[in-house]
């Protein structure tokens, strides 16, 4: 059963303001939320921090979801915006002397570093170099292998925009991979081929 069908009643209750429903919903979607936090945060952020803010947003702002079907897109946008916010804060912390907005150390934690192989760390590093819009579409299309229409719904953009971002993301990823990790770049040409076989080539 699709998660949206499984959780429709919970989502409706959460939108109506039921805090218990919001918490249960978060627990039901926890694996996906954590995966998005980890995939969109990059190597310089602690996904734990992003997750905390995502959880607080879901618990306090879910009444703004317009209908149950819109929940997955809303949830993705919450993760996306919180990840981007932490990126900006980390950037400020690096470049503006004296600005300390969080007590958390953003360096790699053992939990994260032990969870990723060397090749995955390289993928994460390359992803981190992409503009946010390209990183998001690459994560959703190539890593999570979602359909065009599903990605368009999650990003709230037209399918044509998804396709054009995919092309840009694919090219940029290949370039960055060549620069950062040539060994990773060698295996990348397999991505568009397998993707197009599975879902049809973008025009």
């Amino acid at each position, binding site marked *: 059963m699709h998660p949206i069908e499984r959780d429709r009643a919970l989502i409706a209750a959460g939108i109506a303001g039921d805090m218990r429903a919001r918490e249960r919903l978060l627990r039901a979607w926890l694996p996906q939320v*954590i995966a998005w936090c980890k995939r969109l945060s990059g190597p310089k952020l602690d996904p*734990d921090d992003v997750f905390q803010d995502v959880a607080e947003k879901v618990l306090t702002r879910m009444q703004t979801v317009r209908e149950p079907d819109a929940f997955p897109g809303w949830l993705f946008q919450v993760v996306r915006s919180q990840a981007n916010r932490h990126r900006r804060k980390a950037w400020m912390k690096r470049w503006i002397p004296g600005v300390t907005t969080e007590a958390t150390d953003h360096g790699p934690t053992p939990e994260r570093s032990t969870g990723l192989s060397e090749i995955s760390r390289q*993928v994460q590093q390359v992803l981190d170099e992409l503009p946010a819009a390209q990183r998001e579409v690459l994560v959703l299309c190539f890593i999570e292998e979602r359909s065009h229409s599903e990605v368009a719904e999650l990003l709230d953009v037209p399918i044509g925009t998804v396709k054009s971002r995919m092309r840009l993301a694919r090219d940029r990823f290949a370039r960055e991979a060549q620069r950062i990790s040539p060994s990773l770049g060698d295996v990348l040409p397999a991505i568009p081929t397998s993707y197009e076989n599975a879902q049809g080539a973008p025009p």
Partner: protein
Amino acid sequence: MTTGQNPLRRFADETWPDERELAHYNRRLSEITNRPARPVWSGLWMPATAGALAAGAALIFALNPTSSEISAPQTLAMQFQPTGEAVSSRPTEQVSLTTNGVATLSGTALAPVIDLTSGSVKVQVEPKAGIDLRVRTPDGEVQVLGTIFSVDRGPLGTAVQVERGRVAVRCAGGVEHPGLVAGESALCLPTTAEGMLGRAAALAASGAPDGEVSAAIEAGLALASGATRAELLAMRMDRALQGGDPSVALADARAYLESGESARREHALRVAARLSAAQGCAAAAPYLDELRALGPANPEPELSAQCAPR
């Protein structure tokens, strides 16, 4: 965990949480739900002196563009007056406004409310940022579902145009447009007699089809009383005259005169006198008598000559 050759597939597998991570995040979620809400910065400077706290907070708020998201809701209070040209403002990081009219901004950074009295406002909201922005006019309410749209309140009603994203429009009259998307527009008709009078006048001035003008007049008459009703009757009377429907024009002229309103009384008297004369001088006499009483200039010489004073 599978370890396929494709590095992206492998990355996908390795970033999907295992049971140990799920247990960790479930505990984190329990911590979050079990503690009271607090500003994020509140615990960071506890050991510092009060002065250091104030200085640190000032620095954070001055330099961190997203501080409004993580602290107590920022209360908004702005007023806009017409200046003859559009004025751009950015009340929060996520909201940009271009106003040209009379409006007030209230609410909080997370839930701004714009009350538009007249003129137009163009709103740009960062999509999916959790902003619950509403634009209210007496004719309806527009709720942001993301992202760029304009609201124009004029005599014809409140027009909403979406440039990007989606908005929901609830007209005060009950009509709803739950999901207007880019390129679409909606119009909330006025819901008051005065509003309908303004709409009818604006439609007539713009040369709109008779049906539209008549519909606005009839909708206004259904709501109106007093001077507004009289003005709508006078408007319908004139249109009936132009349209060659003397019976309607005469009935409206009489209704206007019975209302006791004075703004267009002389005009209504002339119409009533001319149209009543078809039934004989006796029918026209009361209107001619009142016209004569209004002033020395005889406004209807031919008719007066035909129907001498009683």
